[in-house]
């Protein structure tokens, strides 16, 4: 393996280039074109958006490589794809397909209830979901080059995205004011290495970019999570489950770039058509929630 190619700086580098952008879930090449036309920085190629995975039930797996390949050929922006948690063989296939990022994702049915993929074994970078700082740090230890707060995918309800993002950022803040003695206990609490805990106490941020996912459906949702500290957003079902995907996609791109400009967000929020209907996460039982997948 060419170590320079798989170097964390190079892996993290692509995530740096995606900052301030919107990564959109797409299920075919037509949707991929619409996403690119609307200004997406990348697309996530998958067979079913999370809302449909939720509705259909059953086992959700890596998408058909043929579908991913068609999407790769139809757009010039980066193409990401999802592998099941712990399913390193799916990840190997996605690497052979030269996808630009692999999402080891709780949206798919986990393949291993104890272990995540050893992401250091790959040259293609990985993004992983996290609901709190400890989970984020465990994924980073395993080689993730980007963290996305999980939220609750396929609901169109932003409440869990907010909860997870706030939890990660406030736990980071707590580290920066902790005494050095306290950091050892924090490492234990977060089930994370003391080296990473010390580094974050010093820098006040994750060593990899922090993006947000799971429930973003409107321009204001995007602005909200960006103001809460996300560096880019993933929009799954929120775009192609809405009345006018193209217009909504463009509006969310504008709102993410200008997240601190309410006047502009007001302008782009008008006449977007029906948003995705969505499900309130309060109505979901614990077993129906995807965010609990990942260890």
């Amino acid at each position, binding site marked *: 393996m060419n170590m*320079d190619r798989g170097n964390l700086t190079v892996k993290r580098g692509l995530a740096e280039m995606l900052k301030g952008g919107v990564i959109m879930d797409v299920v075919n090449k037509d949707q991929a074109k619409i996403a690119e036309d609307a200004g997406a920085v990348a697309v996530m190629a998958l067979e079913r958006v999370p809302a449909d995975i939720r509705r259909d039930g059953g086992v959700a797996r890596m998408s058909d490589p043929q579908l991913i390949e068609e999407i790769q050929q139809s757009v010039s922006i980066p193409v990401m794809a999802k592998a099941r948690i712990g399913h390193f063989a799916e990840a190997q296939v996605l690497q052979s397909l030269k996808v630009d990022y692999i999402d080891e994702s709780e949206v798919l049915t986990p393949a291993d209830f104890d272990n995540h993929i050893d992401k250091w074994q790959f040259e293609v970078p990985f993004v992983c979901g996290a609901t709190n700082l400890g989970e984020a740090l465990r994924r980073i230890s395993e080689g993730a080059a980007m963290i996305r707060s999980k939220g609750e995918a396929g609901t169109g309800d932003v409440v869990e995205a907010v909860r997870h993002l706030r939890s990660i950022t406030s736990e980071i803040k707590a580290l920066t004011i902790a005494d050095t003695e306290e950091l050892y206990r924090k490492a234990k609490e977060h089930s994370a290495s003391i080296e990473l805990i010390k580094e974050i106490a010093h820098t006040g941020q994750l060593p990899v970019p922090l993006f947000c996912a799971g429930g973003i459906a409107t321009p204001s949702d995007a602005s909200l999570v960006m103001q809460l500290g996300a560096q880019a957003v993933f929009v799954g079902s929120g775009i192609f489950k809405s009345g006018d995907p193209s217009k909504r996609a463009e509006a969310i791109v504008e709102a993410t770039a200008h997240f601190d400009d309410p006047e502009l967000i007001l302008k782009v929020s008008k006449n977007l058509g029906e948003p995705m209907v969505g499900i309130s996460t309060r109505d979901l039982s614990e077993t129906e929630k995807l965010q609990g997948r990942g260890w």
Partner: protein
Amino acid sequence: MTVGILSLQGDVELHQFVLSQLGIKSAKINKLTQLDDISSLIIPGGESTTMSKLLISSGIYEQIVKRIKEKSIAIFGTCAGMILLANKIYDGREDQISFNAINVGIKRNAFGRQIESTFKTVVIRGDSEIEPSFIRAPRIADIGDDVVVLGTLKQTAEPVLVTQGKMLASSFHPELSKESCDNIVHRIFLEIAEEK
């Protein structure tokens, strides 16, 4: 001097960090009015298609075109920034815009997908060597009149850093390097920006 960094999308913070290391103030630019106080601008790495849309909708595109014509702005484009400065984009989208500011033709993502992204040794002005990252990097396919090559790949002598007038463009990310390389490329840009 305050250097503006176009902050519509991309790796803005990495450029900010380099400038702060050089003791230079920077300002994020994502609104038209913010351009008025700026005479030098960095266009960071990111997605050129996304930036191109946001440049139009924000009105910044028109203003930068005007400032380039007046020769009242120096611009440094890295990766996506280089694509936006080029006269010709071979495989861009139909609606993709560029500033037509450097007489080169560019092929997007021509160094390959992310799995091909890597560090490469670049020789600057024939003497110093740096090892910056090339991330889904664009290639300079052809070079026209008035363009000066400042950096080439050590292995193949392929041009990867070019300048014309007050413009500077790199295929690579000097803001994301193995070592800081003394921030040599940003220093070159500051020299260009300070020339009267």
